[in-house]
């Protein structure tokens, strides 16, 4: 066993949350990827003769007001949630890292300009900013991801800037500059790899927040649009019938919570794992 693998095994014994987080993430990815194979019905398959059926052997989580299978819609909903979570974080991560590293590397006026822009965005509560962008662009899956990508950019920019500033003053950056490396090369090969750890932790945590925000916006009818299944809109639609059919609101809510919990676990565990002070303690 390599020393890194040994370190990981020792760490996961001490922190079972990382194993739990990883396993749950894997399950979630598998469910989302294999949705067409494992889903018992098509998510939009109507069966009006079997409306609002409670959980049975045929429909493990019951059916909704159109007779659609809740389990199948939950499984397909995982796809939408993960897609929004991951793409949002990719947009925010790339934009934020570019802005943060640029601000840190060039300093002065550029740093000031970028950071004031970031402060301006941070002056908004996140969901409000997302609402403003969605109002401007119109509610759709793509616009939702763009809106949330913008909303989460400042957090990545701040982390990237802070980490890049500390790396920038290292001797190896000076050496790289001394041997004639250009700005782009220094940023790409020397600064970026050294600031990846905190960004990775932030990415995991942001996926959880993005999934929650997507569910909230879809719940409000401003995110993923019907008939595409999304946990947030399923909750909203289920509210009307919940007095007699509580399963309509319990299953999607539970799915959102478990997914967010999974990424919170993973984020916490990853932070502990990547923090050198904790690895060797």
């Amino acid at each position, binding site marked *: 066993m390599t020393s890194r693998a040994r370190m990981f095994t020792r760490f996961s014994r001490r922190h079972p949350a990382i194993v739990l987080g990883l396993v749950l993430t894997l399950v979630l990815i598998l469910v989302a990827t294999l949705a067409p194979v494992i889903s018992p019905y098509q998510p939009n398959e109507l069966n009006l003769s079997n409306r609002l059926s409670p959980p049975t052997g045929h429909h493990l989580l019951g059916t909704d007001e159109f007779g659609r299978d809740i389990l199948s819609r939950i499984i397909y909903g995982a796809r939408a949630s993960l897609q929004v979570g991951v793409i949002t974080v990719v947009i925010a991560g790339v934009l934020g890292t570019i802005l943060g590293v640029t601000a840190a590397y060039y300093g002065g006026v550029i740093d000031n300009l970028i950071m*004031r822009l970031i402060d301006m965005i941070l002056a908004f*509560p996140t969901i*409000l900013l997302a*609402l*403003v962008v969605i*109002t401007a662009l119109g509610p759709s899956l793509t616009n939702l991801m763009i809106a949330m990508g913008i909303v989460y950019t400042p957090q990545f920019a701040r982390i990237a800037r802070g980490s890049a500033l500390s790396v920038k003053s290292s001797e190896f950056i000076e050496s790289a500059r001394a041997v004639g490396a250009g700005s782009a090369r220094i940023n790409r090969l020397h600064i970026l790899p050294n600031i990846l750890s905190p960004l990775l932790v932030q990415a995991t945590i942001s996926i959880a927040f993005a999934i929650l925000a997507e569910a909230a916006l879809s719940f409000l009818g*401003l995110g993923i649009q019907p008939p595409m299944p999304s946990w947030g809109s399923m909750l909203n639609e289920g509210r009307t019938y*919940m007095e007699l059919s509580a399963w309509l609101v319990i299953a999607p809510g539970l799915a959102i919570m478990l997914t967010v919990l999974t990424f919170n676990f993973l984020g916490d565990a990853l932070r502990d794992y990547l923090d050198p002070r904790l690895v060797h303690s």
Partner: protein
Amino acid sequence: MLTFILRRLGLAALSIVGIMVIVFLALHAIPGDVALILLDQEVTPELLAQLRNDLGLDRPLHVQFISWAAAALRGDLGESFRTGSDVTAQLVRRYGITIQLAAMASVLSVVIGVPTGIISAIKRGSTFDYASRTVALLGISIPNFWLGILLILLFSLQLRLLPTGGYVPPGESLMLNMQRMLMPSLTLGAAMAAVVMRMTRSALLETLAQDYTRTARAKGLAERYVIGVHALRNALIPVITIVGLQLGHILGGTVVVEEVFSLPGVGRLVVRAIYQRDYPVVQGGVLVLAASYVLINLLVDLLYSVIDPRIKYD
């Protein structure tokens, strides 16, 4: 101290200007013609030109912004595209509801979060500690709109103890008002209570391990005094920071919670206005909520200097 306050005031003013720019530009970058959206049907070019002129949409963007911003600073947020009613008056009517909701949620979260965090830290490793940390983790992960729905399901539809939603002004009946605001406030404050609990616990654990706490104990001070005066006062500084940061989520969260409980606050107004593409109402509502967030953060920053002895000594 005065310089700090002035500097902080200046920054808050800048943030509000920034918010105004973003809100204005975002809603003016809307694809398509707002006038066309408003008319919703085929119109003659003359009618369209007339409407654009009436709404001031034919003026250059910066002129539109300056006139909107100047009016907004005077408290005039324009008229609703749909109903023609005064946006400021609509917001004033609803702002109290949103603020009451946010305030009750914040108070509940501090009242629940701080004592739980303190007991958890003092009884570290106990069953209470594990149980409250687990509940806190669930509190952070549970979507507030789902928690709201579950509370309605349990307390309104099953047990018939509380109404499902709606609003009664406190002036009309304080009892009915509290009945209707309890579940929304709990829903909105749950996540914040969880965050406050976690922060109180970790901050207190940290200060309890500090030299000055050991010194206080070595002097023979009572444990209650060591924790209450020496450890807790320092532990509260990061707690206040996190409360300040969370207030933003609380204000943002009102949008969703008001929808769940049919509370006619600013958040619900904004969501309805987005459905109807009523941009002046969206602009006004978002501006008011975001400006409140900036002002609350300003107050939190100023509160630091009161609670942090190091700032006071400076």
